[in-house]
């Protein structure tokens, strides 16, 4: 269907089959005038679309900054690192949600990145051809599941499993170690940063896997075959040929996943525990920036409360920009080498 449509279009507009009206336009000057007008319109439209992006982004940032101003005026820069969130006393600060956001995203990355790489390597290097498509489609479908579904699943299925099996096991083993044991102590609540991290990992996984698989596929067959030809094992080909060749794309894929993890709201709200506290234990309930905003915005009764939530939004944007900036910088650097 598509191809026939396209060829029809070419037949109608192209110079190959001129219609009766087109004959009149054959004089070069008129034709030129018409294209000039078209060109100008095209330039105008595309420039307009491009500048709209900048205007919208600027508008969002200005709105956030203006809305957040009362909070920063009241609490000063300490808003970012102080650790109190007391709506009853009108005292707010951002350290706990920032901490929760960063820790849950870090847990998600620690789980999702190796898994995604493993899946991508399997799909491109090891997988028998008939399985390649079904597994690929399954991963893409995973990306299409709405986040609220992940939240429900995390809350009704994962959290009870974590509470009755995973967390007691972690507390009983890793929790007894000096140092690292601090991360695995306390009561098993079921929900908390660890559970949120696991849910986020599953959500980020398809994004990272899809990008990784695609960039692995860009490795020229000649390179790969030559490597196998000189007697390299599959592991060596992946380690010394494929991964170095795709470094830039891999960073891009990881950042895409990280971006999803940082901003995810609904799924996290279900399983994070929604409590404004910084705890050493990964199993403790916490909150993230987006979860706090979603939970509290409708009931933010004082102007300062609203301003503080908007300030949280501004900080989340800043974190996302920093992550993106770092990604760009890393890509630039690896290009130079």
């Amino acid at each position, binding site marked *: 269907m598509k191809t026939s449509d396209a060829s029809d279009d070419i037949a109608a507009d192209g110079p190959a089959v001129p219609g009766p009206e087109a004959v009149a336009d054959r004089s070069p000057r008129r034709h030129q005038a018409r294209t000039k007008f078209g060109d100008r319109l095209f330039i105008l439209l595309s420039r307009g679309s491009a500048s709209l992006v900048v205007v919208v982004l600027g508008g969002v940032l200005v709105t956030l900054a203006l809305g957040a101003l009362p909070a920063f005026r009241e609490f000063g820069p300490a808003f970012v690192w102080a650790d*109190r*969130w*007391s*709506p*009853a*006393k009108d005292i707010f600060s951002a350290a706990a949600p920032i901490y929760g956001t960063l820790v849950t995203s870090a847990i998600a990355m620690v789980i999702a990145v190796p898994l995604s790489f493993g899946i991508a390597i399997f799909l491109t290097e090891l997988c028998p051809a008939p399985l390649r498509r079904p597994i690929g489609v399954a991963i893409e479908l995973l990306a299409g599941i709405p986040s609220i579904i992940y939240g429900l699943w995390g*809350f*009704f299925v994962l*959290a*009870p499993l974590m*509470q*009755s099996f995973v967390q007691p096991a972690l507390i009983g083993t890793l929790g007894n170690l000096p140092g690292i044991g601090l991360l695995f102590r306390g*009561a*098993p*609540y*079921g*929900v908390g940063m660890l559970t949120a991290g696991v849910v986020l990992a599953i959500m980020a996984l398809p994004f990272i896997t899809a990008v990784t698989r695609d960039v692995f596929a860009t490795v020229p067959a000649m390179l790969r075959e030559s490597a196998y030809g000189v007697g390299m094992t599959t592991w060596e080909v992946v380690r010394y040929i494929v991964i170095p060749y795709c470094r830039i794309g891999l960073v891009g894929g990881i950042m895409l996943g990280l971006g999803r993890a940082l901003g995810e709201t609904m799924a996290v*709200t279900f399983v994070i*525990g*929604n*409590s*404004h506290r910084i705890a050493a234990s990964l199993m403790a*309930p916490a*909150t993230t920036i987006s979860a706090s905003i979603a*939970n*509290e915005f*409708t*009931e*933010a*009764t004082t102007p300062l409360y609203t301003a503080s939530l908007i300030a949280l939004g501004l900080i989340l944007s800043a974190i996302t920009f920093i992550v993106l900036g770092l990604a760009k910088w890393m890509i630039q650097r690896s290009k130079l080498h």
Partner: protein
Amino acid sequence: MTVFKKLLATTATGLAGLLLATVVQAADISGAGSSFIYPVFSKWGAAYKEKTGVALNYQSIGSGGGIKQVEAGTVTFGASDKPLSDDELAKNGMIQFPMVMGGIVPMYNIDGVNPGELVLDGQTLVHIFDGTITSWNDPAIAALNKGLKLPAQAIVVVHRSDGSGTTFNFTDYLSKISPEWKDKIGADTAVEWPVGLGAKGSEGVANTVKQTAGAIGYNEYAYIVQNKLGFAKLVNAAGKVVTPSLDTFGSAASNADWAGAKNFHVVITNQPGDASWPIAASTWVIIHTDASKDPDAYKGALTFFDWIYKNGKQDAAALDYVAIPDNVSKLVESSWSAVKAGDQPAFTAMQ
């Protein structure tokens, strides 16, 4: 041609329908706020519509949201489980009056303890929610529950993560019990919880308690009855163990001194009386006094409230809410004379 005619006819019908819909909507009573009152409001609304044809459009978005919306004027009335202060009312030119009363009940999910078996008192509740008591077999809980086999299970505190009038009344009770709680944490629609998990909405708290072994939370009684969850008995201010029920909520409500309070600002937690449930709560309706923007809407709303006071008692009792006594509703209706469009009062009571 016939196709065109048909099309025209359909469009005309559609437009007429749309117009009609707008007309009906204009007569609707619009309100927003408390989720505590929502079950009984929807029951009253349905009965009122059957009788008068006027529908209630109430959004159960939480007390804080309701206050915001009525201040902004997007709805005719707001409903809140936390009374506004005299200053807040005066600043926005609004009045408030009580609509219904009910009970807030601690709910739990403890291995081997059936609904209604656990007894708690104020002090123990404070210490569970401030994190001092961390296990269900703590001596303080055991002392109140002789003969009950309590497991050595970790306590998981569950509270609301969104702002809520239920939280206000619950923390108000804890503040009345413990000066320390009052000083450090206070009473509000959202507080700085020292321990526990946050869950969004009444349903969120109910589900989290149901899901989590060793959990304790607090909720409106209606949600606990509907979900068949474990509820606790409490020791009240008179030192008696009481079971949550319409009677014990009513006993607490009857002690409230509505007449003596300016702007009906009475919080009915920790009331005296042998049969009083200690964590009783009320919902207030908040409305602007300047009705000139849409006199009919104000008249419609106040007529509805008048109908509730006179005819809504049984519906309330069926859902375990306590209706406002007649002597109080008379006081309320006389306060409505402040709601005016120009010089004209928006509502005049029919005799």
